[in-house]
């Protein structure tokens, strides 16, 4: 298959899957098979592009040209390859998990759930492979809208209210800030194509800073404070949604876009020469610490994980704001390593809910004996997020710190260190409570009581992935090293 055909196939596969899922809605087993087969085919297609991209090829596909040189076009470069491969691969694991979770909790509207999920994956791939800002924007909006039914899945008034916050913030930031930023960019550069070295070389320093602000806050999915509120709101969704979308596809689409804009629209040199990114270091650094502090105050497990996500996303924005080679490599790697760690944590939270219907951290005391596998996996995910070996998170933090030192940003170094300490406090506290504290009397069931098997399989796979990303990080490093750093 030629690369162009592969791109088309990769984009069309989830859509065909969505139709298949809708048609087989009456037969749950067949429907879930369709999801799994689609996810498998998609992963094969996307991964088949990896060797070419690593060899330096940049597969392109022009769909149509519109007014003034604008077009709908795809071009796969290392960063998009990384994000695309990540989303496609984790979709398989997440689908396995969803089967256990959705059935274990007797959720309603399961067909709608799987259909929207497939469309969301389609949109995430579109974001990953987009060859210009306009294409990216279109898929970014499709992603927002296709995930709304997933967030409001429960359908009760409180859920719908939260879902409205989700949609409101994401739509208004993208139309109110990102779209004008795009138009401004076009007015200055005459193009919206992603170009190595950027397209905004002629813009004066202060204007560059303002434009970067429009992008940083306009890309609401990156959850930079103060536009992070949608993420905790989105936690009303079923846990598989929180896991894949709010640890991987949606939020990563956000930080991916920030990174992509910094590297391919602004260009690292343009930014550093003008010093236009300096304020973003402060804001993202502030978000890292503040969100961690808020996470410590949350007793609800998913809310705590949500604020942890806000904090971790700003690592990536911080890496982009450092605008150094190592910073960008670290940020790109963190997209993958944080995904593996955070999806594990969410899977565990969902498993605890499915098995024991507990949602608060304080209710988890002494449950280590009851759900040993889940809490072991939780520990793995937590340590990976904290950034300690032998888990993947160590590498991304390594490069981020290196990038901060290269840029001479001692503030950023301090932020990374403080944040690691805070992570230890609010994440490791949970397995410690479960394993080493005596349970409140009579509240713990006898014997082992784990979540359904599909959930456990999924948790096992992602925990393993955290380890693999540490020992087998070389391909990831090679891929991210291909990003244009000057």
């Amino acid at each position: 298959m030629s690369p162009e055909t592969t791109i088309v196939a990769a984009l069309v596969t989830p859509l065909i899957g969505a139709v298949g899922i809708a048609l087989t809605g009456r037969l749950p087993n067949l429907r879930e098979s369709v999801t799994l087969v689609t996810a498998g085919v998609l992963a094969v297609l996307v991964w088949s592009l990896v060797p070419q991209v690593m060899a330096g090829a940049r597969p392109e596909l022009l769909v149509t040209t519109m007014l003034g040189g604008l077009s709908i076009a795809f071009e796969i470069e290392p960063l998009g390859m990384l994000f695309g491969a990540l989303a496609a691969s984790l979709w398989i694991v997440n689908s396995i998990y969803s089967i256990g979770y959705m059935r274990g909790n007797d959720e309603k509207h399961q067909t709608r759930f799987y259909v929207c999920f497939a469309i969301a994956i389609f949109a995430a791939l579109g974001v990953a492979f987009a060859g210009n800002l306009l294409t990216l924007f279109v898929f970014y909006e499709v992603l927002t809208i296709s995930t709304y039914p997933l967030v409001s899945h429960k359908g009760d008034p409180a859920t719908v209210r939260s879902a409205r916050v989700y949609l409101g913030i994401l739509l208004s930031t993208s139309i109110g800030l990102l779209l004008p930023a795009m138009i401004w960019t076009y007015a200055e550069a005459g193009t919206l194509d992603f170009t190595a070295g950027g397209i905004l070389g002629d813009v004066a320093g202060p204007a560059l800073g303002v434009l970067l602000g429009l992008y940083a806050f306009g890309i609401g999915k990156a959850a930079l404070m103060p536009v992070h509120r949608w993420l905790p709101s989105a936690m009303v969704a079923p846990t598989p949604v929180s896991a894949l979308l709010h640890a991987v596809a949606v939020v990563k689409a956000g930080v991916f876009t920030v990174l992509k804009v910094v590297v391919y629209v602004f260009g690292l040199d343009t930014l550093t020469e003008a010093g236009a990114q300096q304020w973003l270091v402060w804001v993202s650094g502030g978000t890292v610490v503040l969100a961690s502090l808020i996470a410590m105050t949350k007793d609800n497990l998913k809310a705590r994980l949500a604020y942890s996500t806000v904090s971790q996303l700003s690592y990536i924005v911080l890496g982009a704001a450092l605008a150094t080679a190592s910073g960008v490599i670290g940020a790109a790697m963190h997209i993958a390593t944080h995904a593996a760690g955070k999806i594990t944590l969410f899977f565990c939270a969902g498993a605890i809910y499915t098995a024991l219907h507990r949602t608060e951290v304080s209710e988890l005391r002494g449950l280590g004996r009851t759900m040993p596998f889940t809490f072991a996996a939780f520990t793995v995910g937590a340590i990976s997020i904290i950034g300690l070996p032998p888990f993947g998170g160590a590498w991304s933090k390594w490069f981020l710190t290196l990038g901060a030192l290269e840029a001479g940003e001692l503030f950023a170094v301090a932020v990374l260190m403080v944040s690691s300490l805070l992570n230890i406090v609010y994440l490791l506290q949970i397995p410690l409570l479960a394993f080493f504290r005596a349970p409140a009397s009579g509240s713990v069931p006898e014997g082992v009581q784990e979540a359904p098997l599909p959930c456990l399989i999924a948790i096992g796979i992602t925990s393993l992935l955290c380890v693999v990303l540490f020992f087998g990080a070389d391909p990831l490093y090679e891929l991210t090293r291909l990003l244009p750093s000057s």
Partner: protein
Amino acid sequence: MNLDAHLPILQIIVPLMTAPVVSLLRVPSLPWAAATVTSGLAFAVAVTLTGQVLAGGPMSYALGGWVPPYGIELYVDHFSALLLLIITGASTVALAFGKASLDQEVGHERAPMFYAAWLLVVAGLCGIVATGDAFNLFVFLEISSLATYVLIASAPDRRALMATFRYLILGTVGATFYLIGVGLIYMMTGTLNLADMTDRIAEVGELRPVLVAAGFITVGLALKAAMFPLHAWMPNAYTFAPHAATAFLAACSTKAAIYVLIRFDLTVFLPHLSDHAEQVSGFFIPLAVLAFLIGSAVAVFERNLKRMLGYSSVAQIGYILLGLALLSPLALTGAIVHLFNHALMKSALFMAVACLAFRAGSVQLPDLAGCGRAMPLTMGAFVLAGLSMIGVPLTAGFVSKWYLILACLEYGPLGYVLAGGILVSSLLAVAYVWKVVEAAYFQPRPEGARELREAPPAMLAVLWLVALGNVWFGIDTDLTLGLAEQAAATLLGDGS
């Protein structure tokens, strides 16, 4: 005889002459069929005319063989060709779409008169944009207005009469203002031919009466165009007119007035009146901004779907007038292309509403709760056209907004504020479109509400044709932008 040379007059007389015949047809459904075929024929003429203009440039036609400026001249250039496409296209799709809906609302008894009036509106509007004579234009303006009142008053709702009466009073004031302005110019120049007028004003020494004429003509036409704050007649007229007629009128009745406004201001006044550029910008920019901010804001709080879309039209007309007021090729291109794109999105939206009303018997939002499940195709088209109205990429609405915002950014510091205003208004559009989506998809049907099913296939087919047109013209912009760019260049070229 070569028919091609006579196309400009055919454009007008085909519907004009068929109208009395239609009024005599007493067989049920025959008036509708005759009107639809005639309208289709007019559309075919418009398409052919556009082809000729694109190939060979503007066409001039001397009525009755009297040479202009003494006789009446018909003049079709790129700008008028685009408007002819809008008018005849909107009429044809609304007629093809609306049979069942109009049968329900107007009934067979009044149908002959109704469809005759419809054809007169088409003839009048085509006349307005095709004529090159200022007084002849007034005559066509009156033909189309009077016939429009009949269309609106044909609705079964008694409140339609009140809405018509209001429209009639204000419409007459507007037309009279226009006539006073034309009279003043005639007094100073002795000509009614628009092209001749442009030449002769240059020789007029005392320009004060011309300035007064500019004031009368601008305000009169602004009233006809429902420019904020002269829009009071419009939301109710749209709300109470028969649904299919709203789809037609919303797409093109105000557009013809805007067309005349643009043509007069840019070709007759702008080149000769000193400071007229400042006057145009100073007059229109604040009103345009208020129009799209207030229009959109009111739409957010409106619970009647048709009135909501009416206020949204107030806002969209604001965009168009802003494009005129910035007086740059880019902005004017945006304004002209938005004439077309707005017609496309609004006729799709009103058609979707007509489908809903056809089944639910109401256009109040609470009565339509939960309709998305029973009428997925109708609501799908509504959402698509709604996205176009918001200006989402890949839809027609994006193209015009893109041009308008680029033009704003080009305009200087004030332009940034204007661009901000457009974006705020777009966000408000998100809010009111979303309100409909939420009611349709995420609320249950109210207790005891009428059982719904999908609209008839004939209505859906046309609705989707237009809705997909929004996507088509959002991607393939050769025709619309080609005509608009050429029109803007000609209009401003004459001005400088």
